[in-house]
């Protein structure tokens, strides 16, 4: 998922919590505290687990209401949730050719209307996900399914069109897409599904909490589900309060009106530390920051120029000064949290001398005004990103100053997130360099070819490399992670050498819990993934 939230206040995973000072004081002193307050920087669009488009804050609430077949543990391993076990080649759950999946559901899982969670529900999800007229969040993975067979209420078989190693993680771990209750959509046409009220009044759920109410623009309230199959939740009621400003989120936390504030901007860390009972959590994320190079511009088609740019940017300074060191410098396109990340691959050094030498070789000679020229043309590039994001804007100024030293003139031109992703990037017009974040959203690189494969959906820079395309094709049909990993590492090497994007860093997600125990953010799930472990301590 490309993430560049509008208004720029939330770089990636962001959440927040709030209430009124008086309220929380009462709840806190009320003995044990039965209500936790989680802030939401954005109002969720829908609570329907297949409704779209994807929104972090919608998923944060969905995760307490709906469960999927598996969970991804913080270390990236799969564990069964609604499923009885994780299918694999060894237990016979996945066929040798990697095409057939045989999945068993656990017994005892129930929807809140009393019906058991059954293969019928997964089948309904499959039908809706693969119906082109239904507005679904994402059909990644589902669109590779050739057939779906219900074997019994607790067993079903899926046959894929082609092997897809990350299939289980893509389709059956998150809440977007999740599993819908068949009873809620039975006999509905696509139009009826699209305009169904289920997304705003999800009365049939199967998670640790049940839906109570949604005050538009204000809050969503859920209460513990006594019939849930998992551990008994320790907090009775959770209020997801919508507070669409990071300043207000901070002041609300300072007024003791907050139990969870996920996605704290790094600049707010010192203030958060001063709040009594606060606990900051830093989590590796699958998110990474990079600068696409636009291959439509002949200047950037020369790999020496791209390498010079990468070496001309003081990336360590960006991480140290702007992110308080809470990020890892990258050598290529996988974050350290992913198994596709090759630890041995070193990021390009910050080396102005070598960068200058490469530009000399490429025929760009230094002019009297401090900028390089070739055939009468100045080495000048337009650097775009989402407007209003303070970290990115500060990065741009650092890059501008950094590159000036090697004679490259950077012009900054930023766009609102909606305009950048909807018009500017796809058109290829109005930018030479574009800084965005990318998030594969699964422990398992699900579609690495999307960014730099020829014709890839997010290949905004129109980069094309034969060797890379071959490697992408090779890994896409592999069914085994251990087989896929060396190929992924070769891809990393090629991306490192070719620099279709300038690699920056993978930031850690920052979140804060206040007067609470059991809060443990997970890079692969929403921070509410283990909500049943949360307990108020004051």
């Amino acid at each position, binding site marked *: 998922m490309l993430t560049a939230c509008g208004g720029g206040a939330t770089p990636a995973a962001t959440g927040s919590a709030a209430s009124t000072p008086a309220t929380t004081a009462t709840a806190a002193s009320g003995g044990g505290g039965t209500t936790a307050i989680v802030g939401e920087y954005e109002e969720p669009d829908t609570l329907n687990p297949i409704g779209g*488009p994807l929104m972090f804050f919608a998923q944060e609430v969905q995760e307490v209401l709906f469960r999927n077949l598996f969970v991804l543990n913080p270390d990236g391993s799969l564990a069964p949730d609604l499923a009885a076990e994780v299918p694999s080649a060894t237990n016979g759950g996945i066929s040798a050719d990697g095409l057939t999946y045989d999945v068993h559901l656990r017994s005892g899982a129930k929807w809140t209307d009393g019906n058991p969670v059954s293969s019928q529900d997964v089948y309904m999800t499959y039908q809706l996900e693969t119906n082109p007229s239904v*507005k679904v969040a*994402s059909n990644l993975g589902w669109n590779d399914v050739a057939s779906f067979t219900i074997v019994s209420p607790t067993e079903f078989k899926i046959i894929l069109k082609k092997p897809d190693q990350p299939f289980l993680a893509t389709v059956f771990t998150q809440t977007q897409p999740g599993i819908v209750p068949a009873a809620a959509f039975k006999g509905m046409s696509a139009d009826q599904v699209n305009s169904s009220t289920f997304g705003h009044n999800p009365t049939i759920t199967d998670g640790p909490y049940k839906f109570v109410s949604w005050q538009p*623009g*204000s809050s969503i309230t859920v209460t513990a589900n006594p019939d849930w199959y998992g551990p008994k939740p320790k907090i009775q009621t959770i209020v997801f309060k919508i507070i669409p400003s990071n300043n207000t989120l901070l002041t609300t936390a300072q007024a003791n009106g907050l139990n969870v504030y996920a996605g704290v901007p790094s600049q707010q860390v010192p203030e958060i530390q001063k709040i009594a009972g606060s606990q900051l959590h830093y989590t590796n994320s699958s998110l990474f920051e990079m600068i696409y190079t636009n291959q439509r511009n002949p200047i950037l088609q020369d790999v020496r120029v791209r390498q010079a740019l990468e070496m001309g940017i003081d990336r360590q300074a960006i991480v140290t000064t702007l992110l308080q060191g809470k990020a890892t410098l990258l050598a290529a396109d996988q974050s350290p949290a992913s198994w596709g990340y090759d630890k041995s691959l070193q990021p390009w050094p910050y080396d102005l001398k070598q960068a200058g030498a490469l530009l000399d070789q490429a025929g760009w000679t230094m002019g009297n005004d401090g900028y390089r020229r070739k055939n009468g043309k100045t080495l000048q590039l337009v650097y775009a990103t989402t407007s209003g994001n303070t970290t990115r804007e500060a990065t741009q100024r650092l890059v501008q100053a950094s590159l000036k030293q090697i004679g490259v003139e950077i012009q900054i031109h930023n766009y609102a997130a909606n*305009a950048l992703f909807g018009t500017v990037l796809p058109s290829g017009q109005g930018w030479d360099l574009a800084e965005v974040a990318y998030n594969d959203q699964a422990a398992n690189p699900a579609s690495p070819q999307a960014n730099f494969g020829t014709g890839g959906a997010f290949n905004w820079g129109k980069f094309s490399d034969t060797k890379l395309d071959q490697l992408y094709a090779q890994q896409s049909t592999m069914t085994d992670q251990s087989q896929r990993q060396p190929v992924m590492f070769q891809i990393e090497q090629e991306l490192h050498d070719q620099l279709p994007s300038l690699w920056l860093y993978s930031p850690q997600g920052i979140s804060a819990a206040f007067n609470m125990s059991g809060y443990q953010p997970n890079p692969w799930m929403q921070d509410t993934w283990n909500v049943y472990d949360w307990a108020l301590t004051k």
Partner: protein
Amino acid sequence: MARFLTRRLLQAVPVLLGISFLLFVLMHAMPGGPLAMYVQQPGMSKDRLAQLAVQMGLNKPVWVQYTEWLAGVLHGNFGYSYIYNEPATTMMLQRFPATMELMLTAFVVSVVGSFALGIFGAVRQYSIWDHLITTLSYFGMAMPTFWLGVLMLILFAVDLHWFPSGGLSSSTGPSGLGDRLRHLVLPASTLAVFLIAQQSRYVRSAMLEVIRADFVRTARAKGLGERVIMWRHALRNALIPVVTVMVINAAFLFGGALVTETIYSWPGMGLLFINAIQQADYPVIMAIVSFLSVVIVFANIVADMLYGLLDPRVRLS
């Protein structure tokens, strides 16, 4: 009066149509568009985007989309939000009570406050109090809401704990009238400060003009009491220009205060509008904008009619 009203109402029809057409075209000319939210989905393909465009009707020419929208509106259907899949009018109406609560409070406070300060400043012109009020009102007008709002939040919610930091009511515990009022104080004051600062200047200058007029001197010569002169003679005449400003201000307030609602997480129409614009949620943008244009056009008609009531010299025909 009836003929005046009929004529103005008929004139309003082409005005409203023109506004809606212009805004519709401008909205579609904005870069980005509703599909931008979907472009960022994992696994999104060009084919899927094309399917979504068809579902939303975005593949048709803008003028076709406009006529379809207009036909829907004439049947009372403003369409479904692209993002929330709910009827745009429902979403707007859900937010309307919160906006009304905040706006009416801020408006009433501002009207009372600006008359009090404006009249006081005019009667005691050039006194130390008048200078103080003048200075403060320039201060009030010059202070941006996003700064004043955050400042009040830090002072009264974080440091002093006098008032809650946002929202309409408490998430837990009692949420009676007292609780609602406590939540209302900061956002309503933030809004009222600017309105009082602006409107009290109008009241002051209108009063100053009137209290020097011949008829006021005549009233004094007749031996009328100062209070009667001020309230019955001067104020009524000073109201005329002031009422226009206030009625139009009130109309704008209906749209919700974008910044104030964001700072105080007030679930009103302003917040909805900002989100809709960021997400290019066309049906919601058009529903709110249409509603606002109707309110503002009507507020102008009301202001003109009030003129006639307040000033016998104005004949509405």
